[in-house]
């Protein structure tokens, strides 16, 4: 169950917009040879598409059966990528680098995507009346409720933290989440406020989806 259809549709459209914005950032940064956090942008493109597919069943992006499994494999790979990035960040930080990337939140978001897709894959229904494609509207999806709740708390916390640090992010990029008010030594990436806004929208939308699982 993913909430009222009209609300799920609005958030789904918002996810498509966020994915398009992330895609535009990739193209512009590539063509203009500007610094950008490509792996985060790619993450946001895929996450936007996947969530839009979950929220708007008629898009037929995420349907029951093999489609869900395929998306699940994609997200396991993305999660593994960000897990490696987080380990790499930690070793860079240990080596004294101040700018060490912005991968931990995306690792958690990727984990949340796996959670939602596993919930879908584990569901037996095929209707999409009032919710996620491939899931019976009367069926509960939460299978690890404490983890689900922890994800929701994380998404809310991450969103407010990014909003709090927007003035710094505008100058030094998302690395400001870790390098508070200090020179990072990193090149300011392309359109940092747009990147921050995309991340905020993604986090709140993911929080919404996970909250709908509470039923």
């Amino acid at each position, binding site marked *: 169950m993913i*909430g009222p259809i009209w*609300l799920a549709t609005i958030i789904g459209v918002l996810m498509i917009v966020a994915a398009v914005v992330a895609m535009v950032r990739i193209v512009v940064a590539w063509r203009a040879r500007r610094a950008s956090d490509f792996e985060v942008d790619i993450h946001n493109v895929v996450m936007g598409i996947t969530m839009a597919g979950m929220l708007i069943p008629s898009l037929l992006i995420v349907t029951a059966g093999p489609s869900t499994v395929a998306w699940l494999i994609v997200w396991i790979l993305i999660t593994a990528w960000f897990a490696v990035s987080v380990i790499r960040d930690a070793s860079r930080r240990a080596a004294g680098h101040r700018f060490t990337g912005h991968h931990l939140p995306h690792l958690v978001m990727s984990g949340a995507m796996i959670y939602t897709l596993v919930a879908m894959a584990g569901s037996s229904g095929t209707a999409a009346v009032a919710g996620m494609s491939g899931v019976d509207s009367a069926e509960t999806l939460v299978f690890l409720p404490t983890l689900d*709740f922890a994800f929701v708390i994380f998404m809310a*916390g991450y969103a407010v933290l990014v909003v709090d640090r927007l003035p*710094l992010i505008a100058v030094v990029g998302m690395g400001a989440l870790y390098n508070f008010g200090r020179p990072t030594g990193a090149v300011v990436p392309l359109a940092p406020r747009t990147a921050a806004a995309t991340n905020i929208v993604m986090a709140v939308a993911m929080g919404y989806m996970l909250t709908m699982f509470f039923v």
Partner: protein
Amino acid sequence: MDQRAVAAVVTDPRRAADTPRFVTDRRRWLQLALAAIWIIDGLLQCQTFMFTPSFAKNFLGVGGGGDPAWVTASIHWAWGIVAASPVLGNAAFATLQLALGFAISWRPAVKVGLAASIVWSLVVWWFGEDLGGLLSGHAGALSGAPGAVLLYAILAVLLWPTGRDTSTTFVAAQSLGLRTAKVVWLVLWVGLASLNIQPANLSADAVHSMVAGMGERQPGWVAGLVNGFAALSAHHGAGLNIAGAVVLALIGVGIFLPVRWIGVVVVAAIVVSAFIWVIGQALGEVFGGESTDINSGPLLALIALAYWPSRPPAVPAQTAGAKP
């Protein structure tokens, strides 16, 4: 700190020492925690059930048990408005709560966010929470008294930004002053203690009847703890509520202990808040699709953290060999 100042720090490290830092002090962290809770509440408000007429009937129409007629009448009036257009009404509720969270987390709007938070909390406390059940004679700390949303308002006041120096006290004293902040703490915790010993809460099954069944649809470990406590509390309602009242009262008066002991009092308050939230409120019963907030436990803990004693400023140490 505006963007140009931030840019000056970032682009010219030599100016870093001269430019005000983008500070995230303890008060700011607590403000962000409050903002995150508003966001979670906004998300909970988006659940399907909230957009149905049943929401208005269940959450706004049931108020008034044991209340004066004028309170009941005002609650039913509000229920009537929401029930007439539940989708529009609830969409407004959810949007407002998300907006409160983002306003508090956006530094230029923090005062607006906290002020709006106080107003909205009082509105919900009256019309949505039936004044926290304080007039019903059944309210108690375990049941969420004095009403979770009232705690949002108290927290917003305690975390109001000021320039007052409180390096030797605690965050809550920044906005209210040391003495007033301590009185607020005393009233809150001793007030909770007094609610516990209302006549209705001293019956043998007062605790059991409230807790039993609360674990349904909640995570297994929560249900296990709640059900275990429910079994233990059977026929021991009076004793448990009196014991709880003693603990709450001790926490309340503990704020007047010497500074070095206040940390212990705050830790005790956090432990009690956690107990209330997990055992008495089953994590706010967020699972089940009908919960609009996470209940009072986390708010009590946040309030307690606002009283965590600050370290006194370091006294410059005498250099070796220096004359006294």
